[in-house]
């Protein structure tokens, strides 16, 4: 029997190959990406658990350096047309944001295990969830006020601050001409009549401050607008495969 097409998601990737530090955050369709720090003062004003933030660029292979514990690695993606799992999403390849955190007393922002140390040793590259050999990493390093790296409020604010920073790029990425993308991926939610009906069940983090999962943020893999699975009682929530592929899940850990 014929496959039934329920909806289509098109993810258009724009690869960045000229990545540098500069005066202001900027991203261009031709692969120029500038990492700026100008947003930091406004973030410090907005989030009362954060003492300071540092934003730095780590070039491919330049990993022989200290890192605080890695809270998340996030792709810069934005919704261009349609809802989560449907329509068009733009994403950046070649650059990923790495969120790290420690408090003023040197207490790492972690729960049961911590990944601070030499980045070269503490990050396994080329996995689905980590940058590749040739990728740039934007280090978004948060210095929490005393004890706040262990508190739910602090942890959420840390993620939210990185999200605000990324939104600057998303707003520019949204306006890119889709026909100029470097990669185009098309995904379909389908019904395949007569084939084996399979369900994927994923057990995810849901136990506390550094062990949380958020669902359905406004932007793919974002924070703003998302809902904590802890606040939903950790009960099972159904996603279509396309929603999953479209960044419906944010790892808050």
């Amino acid at each position, binding site marked *: 029997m014929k496959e039934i097409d329920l909806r289509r998601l098109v993810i258009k990737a724009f690869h960045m190959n000229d990545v540098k530090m500069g005066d202001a955050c900027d991203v261009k369709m031709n692969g120029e990406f500038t990492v700026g720090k100008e947003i930091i003062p406004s973030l410090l004003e907005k989030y009362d658990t954060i003492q300071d933030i540092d934003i730095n660029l780590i070039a491919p292979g330049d990993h022989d350096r200290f890192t605080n514990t890695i809270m998340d690695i*996030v792709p810069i993606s934005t919704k261009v047309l349609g809802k989560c799992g449907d329509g068009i999403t733009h994403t950046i390849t070649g650059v990923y944001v790495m969120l790290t955190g420690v408090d003023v007393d040197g207490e790492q922002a972690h729960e*049961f295990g911590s990944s601070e140390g030499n980045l070269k040793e503490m990050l396994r590259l080329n996995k689905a*969830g980590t940058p590749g050999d040739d990728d740039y990493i934007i280090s978004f390093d948060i210095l929490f006020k005393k004890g706040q790296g262990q508190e739910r409020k602090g942890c959420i604010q840390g993620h939210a601050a990185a999200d605000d920073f990324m939104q600057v790029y998303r707003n520019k990425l949204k306006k890119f001409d889709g026909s100029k993308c470097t990669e185009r991926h098309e995904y379909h939610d389908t019904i*395949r009549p007569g084939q*084996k009906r399979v369900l994927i069940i994923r*057990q995810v983090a849901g*136990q506390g401050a550094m062990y949380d999962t958020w669902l359905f943020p406004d932007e793919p893999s974002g924070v703003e607008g998302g809902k904590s699975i802890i606040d939903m009682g950790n009960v*099972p929530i159904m996603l279509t495969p396309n929603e999953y592929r479209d960044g*419906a899940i944010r*790892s808050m850990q």
Partner: protein
Amino acid sequence: MGIGPSTKETSLHHFRDPLVEIVGSDAGIDLMGVLVFGTADDNVDKIRNSTMAAKIAECMRADGVIVSSDGWGNSDVDYVNCIQELGDRGIPMSGLNFSGSMAQFVTESEYIGKNIIDIAKNPEGVESNIVGENNMSPEDVKKALIQLKIKMREKEMKSE
């Protein structure tokens, strides 16, 4: 990072997840959806939520289920209960989980057997705190899918 940095799935992992990618692109599988539940803190919640996940699979008349977890230790309480509930309901299943040498299941189920693929990559089989090290790979997913297909076929043959 939560329970074990080496098993944690980052937001980037979920965006490029090999499980949804491989199962979704298999022409012999009608992937119905992805059911996500959180690892609860409280034992009552752990059992209720993981049972509910298996119940939803039954209500959907799933021919098979693949269960994954991104934690270990007390996460096994929810995980193994989900597997037990699926097994008791006669639903063929396979799974992906980190065990290695240090994180053998803390609870038991007769349905674990060969059905659960160990995604440990660390040479000593330990939680190394290295981000990404003990994440599932495309090869792990392919193994889990093959195991599920075997289980679904076995059930079919029994009823023939």
